[in-house]
């Protein structure tokens, strides 16, 4: 079954490649929300209307010439997937929890390299998402824009001159674009500078959110910076602003790292090595602790303190140690205590594979 391809391998192809500024920026994503004209939005659509949306997208996918990135794309229906399979797709950021749990006639089109996922009947009829490694928001936008144009050859979008692309939620209207960059900011966290930087970012119309796991806090010093405004600015302006703000965050993080290396090198090395030690030897580990330790190790790799561990280890383990993946790997249901044990084992195997 072809779904295996998407759920059995933890790393999407795009994750393996090293993107620009990948020591600080994990990934760049652009999502474009579109609705078909003449059909109610998914919230009020009947099952047959939702099924019609899927049919229309399938039809559009058959148009020639197909966009090269969609050449081996597959359409997966939520109803055909098990809960675990859906969960794994959520953990890989290929679909949203909303599509997995609440959508009617929900489906997703995945490109073979998983850089593109197109959600159908999520909050809007169509959400085109492009995910790139490292710091490449413009590249992600360019691809999303191309795909949007390609679909528009055969699909009629809900659009009006005043409000632009009409979306189910008023926070997406206009361009329908949400661009976000995932950044790893351990040094800003250690030096407490985060608290001064983040409020400034929200003042220019961007949002910073933590990446949340099972708990409720930002985990592993990972943050997502994204645009809030979608109406009244052109797409390029939106991406441009995001890009320049993130560029400043990268600068601040780099300076903080440099300062830490100059002033507290030994304690920093100690912290990094201790975290590696725990990851390499623990028998039980919570997802919260795992993320914190992985953040330290990732920082150690980026600063050249550790050389035997690959920089991708964090990207990979961040995904692989989540509940869905752990259960998929174990081929059985696991409660949270069992997951903590499996998680520790999975991490140990990875760390020792490296040396």
């Amino acid at each position, binding site marked *: 079954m072809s779904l295996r391809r998407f759920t059995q391998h933890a790393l999407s192809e795009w994750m393996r490649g090293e993107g620009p500024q990948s020591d600080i920026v994990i990934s760049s994503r652009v999502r474009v929300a579109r*609705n078909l004209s003449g059909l109610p939005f998914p919230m009020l659509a009947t099952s047959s209307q939702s099924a019609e949306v899927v049919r229309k997208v399938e039809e559009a996918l058959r148009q020639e010439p197909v966009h090269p990135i969609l050449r081996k794309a597959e359409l997966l229906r939520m109803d055909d997937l098990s809960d675990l399979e859906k969960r794994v797709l959520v953990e890989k950021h290929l679909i949203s929890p909303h599509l997995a749990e609440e959508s009617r006639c929900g489906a997703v089109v995945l490109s073979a390299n998983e850089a593109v996922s197109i959600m159908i009947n999520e909050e809007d009829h169509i959400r085109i998402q492009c995910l790139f490694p490292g710091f490449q928001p413009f590249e992600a936008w360019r691809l999303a824009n191309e795909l949007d144009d390609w679909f528009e050859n055969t699909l009629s979008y809900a659009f009006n001159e005043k409000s632009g692309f009409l979306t189910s*939620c008023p926070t997406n209207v206009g361009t329908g674009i949400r661009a976000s960059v995932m950044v790893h900011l351990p040094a800003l966290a250690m030096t407490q500078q985060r608290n001064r930087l983040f409020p400034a970012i929200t003042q220019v119309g961007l*949002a910073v959110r933590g990446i949340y796991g099972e708990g409720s806090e930002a985990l592993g010093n990972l943050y997502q910076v994204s645009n809030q405004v979608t109406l009244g600015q052109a797409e390029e302006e939106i991406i441009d602003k995001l890009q320049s703000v993130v560029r400043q965050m990268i600068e601040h993080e780099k300076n903080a790292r440099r300062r830490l290396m100059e002033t507290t090198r030994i304690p920093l090395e100690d912290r990094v090595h201790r975290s590696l030690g725990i990851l390499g030897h623990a028998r039980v580990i919570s997802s919260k602790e795992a993320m914190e330790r992985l953040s330290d190790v990732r920082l150690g790799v980026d600063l050249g303190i550790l050389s035997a561990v690959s920089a991708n280890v964090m990207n990979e383990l961040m995904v692989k140690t989540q509940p869905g993946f752990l259960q998929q790997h174990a081929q059985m249901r696991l409660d949270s205590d069992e997951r903590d044990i499996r998680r520790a084992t999975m991490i140990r195997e990875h760390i020792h594979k490296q040396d």
Partner: protein
Amino acid sequence: MQCQECGKRPATLHYTKIINGEKTEFHLCDSCARDKGEQMPGFDGGFSIHHLLSGLLNMEPSVAEGKPRGQTEAPSVLRCPTCGLTYNQFSKIGRFGCSNCYQAFGERLEPLFRRVHGNTSHRGKVPQRTGGKLKLRREIEQLRGELSKRIQNEEFEEAARLRDHIRSLQEKLQG
């Protein structure tokens, strides 16, 4: 946006929590987020950090059973004729029912858009095939700007060419 917990510091963390299908939005400053983190239990429903409704509309689960019906309400209720959603319901759930809601709720939406986006009209992409005459009008606007620049620079030959081009586009717009 201010932190919903202390109301003093600007909110820097925004997220949506889903428990048993019920969504709750949080807008917290860093320090309140840290405090809250210790009180909240683990979640199995998973987070949707992508959805953010800026706390301008009250979130309440409603319109659960498909299309709302109108017989019981006063006729003065503002309602989308296409999907049946009332403005009142919209302001509770923060979601439109269909694309005609935008027109049906009309100017009532402007203050909302202004607060969320600081803006009320679209300046971005226009769909190629279904964008109507907007593309043409934008092009004319842009050429007009260029025309006045040429005139200022006394580049009359180029200005004349632009003027003719604008005229032909205007004819197309009317035709």
